[in-house]
């Protein structure tokens, strides 16, 4: 026992020396500005792209050195909030448009209006800038990097054998065509569509924009939640596809998007609705010879979907905002933005970067379909509302899930959503 204790103490002392020497920040040399970049990139391809960008910057800019602070993708808000409140935030933070309103209003993110170079401003469409522009008081507090849409992925062999023609970006499917195709492809215990709806709120809300569903409307100076005809259209369409048409596998209601992929790859369903980033999963995980394609976004009255781009922001606490902006402009030049987007299969915010991605890929058709959605991306009202995140997690997600599991009527769903919103908004 004594020997054991002695050995343990020896290990502890050695390790204590190591711990004491392990310092957080890189040493600062005279005249060198050290910046930190908190980023939640997680796909190996994107991590490699981000590391490459930072390394090349550090090589070419010896007076401004950037180091990466990795953030867990599922705890971004908590991590950033803690570091903002604690005054130890990274200089540059990677987040998304829907998450930054509360940080902006709390004063944690710097107004970048005067810092953003004109060339960068011109490269990114106004619809995306709108998602990070908080008016005169707060200004622009993030630079859009890349965004996502919800698309139909199809097993092309099954579609071909059923005699169904694939849509094109100039001639996209309407929801009616999608429903008809799903019904036609449902036979012999196989479903037309596998749709992972475990976390359905973002999907439902953004697809609702196809009929102009904004969910939150400014009425008499208050942001109210209204589930009117446009909002009900997406809800009833999805519900009917599951329970009336029976063309969507009801088992998918309790599963995540990626959890339905085994069924899709096994040919148990011909199509699946996924975030366009799932294309990366198709490439790495689909069986050899699996013939898949990503279709253009579906069309209701419009092809609109919510623009919720990932963003790079500068913390108000940063002592080197101009230098941070220099790095952001470098990291988001067309070539670098294309590298980041290609890694995650997300749509680059800049049209020129998008062209670069299309040029460099083997999946030309799917990428072209992904990029064709950019003009239809709009700012959704809910993105700028501070109570939204809480309402989404506590009210909307469980209520939508119950409705899609056929355990809640449409009327009860509407009551729950509206009452929940009123309670949280106060």
């Amino acid at each position, binding site marked *: *026992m004594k020997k054991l204790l002695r050995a343990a103490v020896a290990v502890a002392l050695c*390790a*204590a020396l190591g711990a004491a020497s392990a310092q957080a920040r890189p040493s600062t040399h005279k005249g060198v500005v050290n910046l930190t970049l908190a980023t939640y990139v997680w796909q190996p391809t994107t991590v490699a792209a981000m590391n490459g960008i930072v390394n090349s910057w550090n090589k070419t800019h010896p007076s401004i050195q950037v180091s990466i602070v990795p953030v867990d993708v599922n705890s971004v808000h*908590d991590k950033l909030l*803690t570091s903002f409140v604690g005054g130890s935030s990274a200089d540059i933070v990677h987040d998304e448009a829907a998450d930054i309103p509360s940080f902006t209003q709390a004063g944690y993110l710097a107004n970048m209006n005067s810092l953003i170079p004109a060339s960068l401003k011109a490269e990114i469409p106004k619809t995306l800038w709108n998602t990070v522009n908080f008016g005169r008081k707060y200004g622009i507090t993030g630079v859009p990097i890349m965004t996502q849409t919800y698309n139909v992925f199809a097993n092309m062999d099954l579609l071909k054998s059923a005699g169904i023609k694939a849509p094109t970006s100039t001639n996209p499917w309407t929801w009616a065509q999608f429903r008809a195709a799903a019904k036609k492809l449902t036979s012999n215990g196989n479903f037309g569509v596998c749709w992972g709806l475990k976390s359905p709120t973002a999907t439902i809300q953004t697809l609702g924009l196809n009929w102009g569903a904004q969910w939150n409307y400014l009425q008499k100076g208050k942001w109210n939640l209204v589930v009117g005809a446009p909002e009900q259209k997406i809800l009833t369409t999805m519900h009917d596809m599951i329970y009336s048409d029976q063309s969507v596998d009801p088992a998918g209601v309790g599963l*995540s*998007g990626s959890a339905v992929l085994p069924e899709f790859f096994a040919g*148990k369903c011909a199509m699946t609705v996924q975030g366009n980033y799932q294309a990366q999963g198709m490439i790495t995980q689909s*069986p050899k010879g699996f013939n898949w394609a990503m279709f253009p976004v579906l069309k209701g009255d419009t092809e609109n979907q919510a623009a919720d781009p990932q963003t790079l922001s500068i913390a108000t606490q940063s002592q080197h905002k101009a230098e941070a902006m220099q790095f952001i402009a470098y990291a988001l030049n067309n070539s670098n933005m294309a590298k980041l987007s290609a890694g995650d299969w997300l749509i680059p915010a800049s049209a020129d970067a998008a062209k670069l991605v299309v040029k460099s890929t083997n999946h030309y058709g799917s990428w072209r379909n992904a990029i064709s959605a950019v003009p239809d991306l709009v700012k959704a009202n809910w993105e700028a509302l501070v109570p939204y995140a809480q309402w989404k997690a506590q009210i909307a997600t469980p209520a939508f899930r119950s409705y899609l599991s056929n355990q809640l009527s449409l009327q009860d769903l509407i009551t729950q959503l509206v009452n929940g919103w009123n309670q949280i908004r106060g």
Partner: protein
Amino acid sequence: MIVSPRQRSMRVGQYSLLCLYMLFLAFPLLWMLSVSFKGPQELVQLHPHVFPSQPTFGNYTDALEHNGLLHAAWNSFKVSSITAILAVFVAVPAAYVLARQQGLISKAGMGWILLSQMFPLILIIMPLFLVLKDLHAINTHIGLIATYLVWTLPFSLWMLQSYVRGIPPQLEEAAMVDGAGRLTILRTIIAPLLGPGIVVVALFVFVQCWNEFFFALVLLDSPNLQTLSLLLARFVGIEGIVRLGPLAASALLATIPSLLIFAFIQRFLTRGLLAGAVKG
């Protein structure tokens, strides 16, 4: 000894049930082992098999070469072992005092220890963060060790004081008669007798720190300082997307130190648990 056919069949039934139960307990580990040798295509098969059809070491290579598993494991080991040792050094004398002194302060101390276990982590994280920031201990292993020490001490104290109560006070009284002071008694009589309890506490603290995620998430920034739990979380992406193969390989490698430590000190653990269960 003559065993009747009925007894024999009973015994066979018992062992069969025991085997099934062990298989049930070990299945997650076996499944993780199986997954760790599967390629990306095999991981999304609709009807997966326990034995990989085309075993690959790719997930292990990925975990070890590209994701810094060994460095994170060393960080976790360093933080967990230092915390375990410090916890023992602090908890042994404190538990001795709490067990032997029956005054108001001792009772209030025990009450406070129980009460401190009831605060949810989310409630203390922000004040803790601010305190550590003032001490320049954010994003350092020293800050994390201090946090883990405070976090694990109440339960360690509670456990150890019950072990101390199990030691007959007459032993100390005899030593006092011979002129030994409290510190000598603690060092020469109590500490050796507490051996099994100390092992249990050290093991408990080590495992708690080895698995801990939330404090590490909030307090550590630098990739060089990240612990295993943080590294493993990075295999889980948005909307349920998981890099299952590398995650299984990493998780399996991450359990090895715990398994080795358990195997090494299992005998102390058994003795320790029994000693704690019965008061002398």
